[in-house]
């Protein structure tokens, strides 16, 4: 089976490519690039004139909720949402029920993904058994079963000694430890950022320092152990500063940021909409500016959605009782194309790199480039598409987004996974 993507503007940051050309895909791999490629017999043609052809986007932080919470999301619905949102691969966090803290659960997720998955699925294994932060999960078995990283995401491993051992034990596996950096004593599990909005609303707030303290600790542990530590969902100016300084000192630390932390501030909480509640919380304008700067200068390596589906009943009640987290797969690309790229905060090529080349590199995943011979995972963008976010049309099983009703320009147009079209908005 072959596919010829014609006339698109190909942006491949891994090869410093930004030019209008065709991409020929054969046997699930990129076969040739060039102008006016001849169509082999039987090839499927995609007219991508006016579109932007990129290496497939990888979302390294999603919650697929399967096994255990299939009422929120499944591998089938979550990967359909990913494809619809322009992603060709997702990494799914370990906080399922049961927790992905042993090879059997990893096997189950991968088996589901093989049968029902629409995009590639890379599981992330737990660091500690049952995410309790008390004893190590079977990390070697998880790595052998196919986990590409380790994380207790959703919880912070508060025991620094145990965390240090996890970093050391996983050194041979070449898979990073991903930190949900939140000192639970400082955060108190508070619903929102500590600041003028928490004071005004009377909601308990958690200070930015609850994140910064743990980022600092984890950088020190990375330095001690030589391990690669990846900071999930950076949300504070302090995190950006700490990661920038650590990188300058040669410590193996990387970081991701979510679209919502790049776009929204704590001011959004004034609506009392529980779709503004997530961990870490929405912060201040100053933090948003630092995150954008860090994304642009490479301090922050990649963008990840932290796609966290929850049922309506878990989000519609009292704010402080509502679940943490929002879905992101189906809004991320459009939101950032409109609010970051179109408004001139981040160049298009940088956004593409942070969603393809950079996560592939830091997780040692195939893809992230359109080099000849690379897996034919392709995300095609339409920078002129006008959309109004309509959660009722999400492929995800959940609808918990703060972006409902937003008018956006630019978005995903087609997703190609392993040479096959996963989804076309229009052709």
């Amino acid at each position: 089976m072959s596919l010829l993507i014609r006339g698109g503007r190909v942006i491949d940051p891994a090869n410093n490519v930004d030019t209008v050309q065709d991409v020929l895909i054969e046997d699930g791999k990129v076969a040739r690039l060039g102008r006016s490629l001849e169509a082999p017999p039987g090839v499927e043609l995609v007219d991508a004139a006016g579109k932007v052809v990129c290496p497939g986007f990888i979302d390294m932080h999603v919650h697929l909720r399967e096994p255990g919470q299939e009422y929120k999301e499944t591998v089938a619905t979550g990967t359909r949402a990913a494809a619809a949102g322009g992603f060709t691969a997702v990494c799914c966090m370990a906080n399922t029920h049961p927790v992905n803290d042993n090879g059997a659960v990893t096997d189950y997720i991968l088996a589901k993904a093989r049968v029902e998955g629409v995009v590639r699925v890379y599981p992330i294994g737990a660091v500690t058994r049952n995410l309790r932060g008390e004893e190590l999960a079977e990390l070697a078995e998880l790595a052998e079963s196919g986990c590409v990283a380790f994380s207790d995401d959703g919880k912070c491993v508060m025991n620094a000694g145990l965390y240090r051992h996890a970093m050391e034990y996983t050194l041979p596996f070449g898979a990073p430890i991903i930190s949900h950096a939140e000192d639970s004593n400082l955060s108190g599990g508070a619903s929102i950022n500590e600041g003028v909005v928490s004071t005004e609303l009377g909601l308990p707030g958690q200070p930015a320092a609850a994140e910064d303290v743990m980022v600092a600790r984890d950088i020190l542990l990375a330095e001690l152990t030589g391990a690669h530590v990846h900071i999930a969902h950076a949300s504070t100016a302090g995190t950006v500063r700490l990661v920038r300084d650590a990188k300058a000192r040669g410590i193996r630390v990387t970081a991701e940021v979510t679209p919502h932390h790049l776009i929204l501030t704590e001011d959004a909480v004034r609506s009392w909409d529980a779709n503004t509640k997530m961990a870490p919380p929405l912060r201040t304008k100053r933090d948003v500016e630092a995150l954008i700067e860090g994304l642009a200068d490479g301090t922050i390596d990649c963008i990840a959605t932290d796609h966290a589906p929850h049922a309506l009943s878990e989000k519609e009640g009292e704010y402080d009782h509502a679940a943490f987290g929002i879905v992101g797969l189906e809004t991320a690309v459009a939101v950032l194309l409109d609010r970051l790229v179109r408004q001139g905060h981040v160049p298009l090529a940088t956004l593409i790199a942070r969603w393809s080349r950079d996560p592939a590199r830091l997780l040692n995943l195939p893809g992230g480039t359109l080099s000849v011979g690379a897996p034919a995972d392709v995300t095609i963008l339409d920078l002129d598409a006008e959309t109004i976010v309509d959660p009722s049309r999400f492929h995800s099983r959940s609808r918990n987004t703060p972006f409902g009703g937003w008018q956006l320009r630019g978005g995903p147009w087609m997703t190609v996974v392993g040479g096959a079209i996963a989804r076309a908005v229009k052709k």
Partner: protein
Amino acid sequence: MAWTRKDLLSMRELDAGEITLLIDTAASLQEIASRDIKKVPALRGKTVVNLFYESSTRTRTSFEIAGKWLSADVINFSASGSSSSKGESFIDTAKNIAAMSPDVVVVRHSSAGAADLLARTLSCSIVNAGDGAHEHPTQALLDLLTIREKKGHFEGLHVAIVGDVAHSRVARSDLHGMRKLGMTVTVAGPPTLIPPYVQELGAKVSYRLEDAIGDVDVIMMLRLQQERMDAGLIPSLREYAHYWGLTLDKLAKHARPDVLIMHPGPVNRGIELAPEVADGPYSVILDQVSRGVAVRMGVLLLLAGRKGGDHA
């Protein structure tokens, strides 16, 4: 000026004109309390539901009396004796009550934003009777009414709000209301009980009781709850009472002779207020409680009467 809002959710959303209308309306209803037959037909045929998810004596009773004096049918719903103890969600319970067509739902809940949530969900009028540490507007209104009666005006007055400001919905509602009416507000307490960035809401901040009460017309003492000690915010009740408890001695030394002592209740005697102060000549704590009924009559009248129902 006419009342146009469906709900009373916060002092923050009101302007000075609306606040004055509420206080004036309450003032005009005060004399009902001194009548032999305490009943007017203003809200005959209207239904008021007190939906209380947190224990309350003063506020719930006050709303109940207010509704009854106005001839409304008042139904009390408290969380313990309801289906919420069988696992029904707040929203579901509220929708069920709304299906019985009340005109006004008065809600008290431990979650900030709970009243706003009901107001968005239900078509009847909602009165916020306290939502978490967010707001308690009718308490602020009765505080304001009391102050106006005792001082004759608002403009230029200086109020010290003392104690656990961080966890106090009364402090927030008072702060907004007082600022809008031209008063100066100083919040005072140990730094762990002062919310961050409170200056941005228009308050001055003091960390010493003696300084805070020095040049003010009103001292609003807040209740100190035992949980604050368990959470490591203060070392002990003993130390708190020593440094932050208001005694006659401190008043005599530092406060003006015409200062008013207020407290939203319930008072921890011997902790934030010495008994001699609570019962002493400066204290208007019981005046606050009786103004509370008038304020709640005023609120119910304006909200339920908004739809063109018959007026008193």
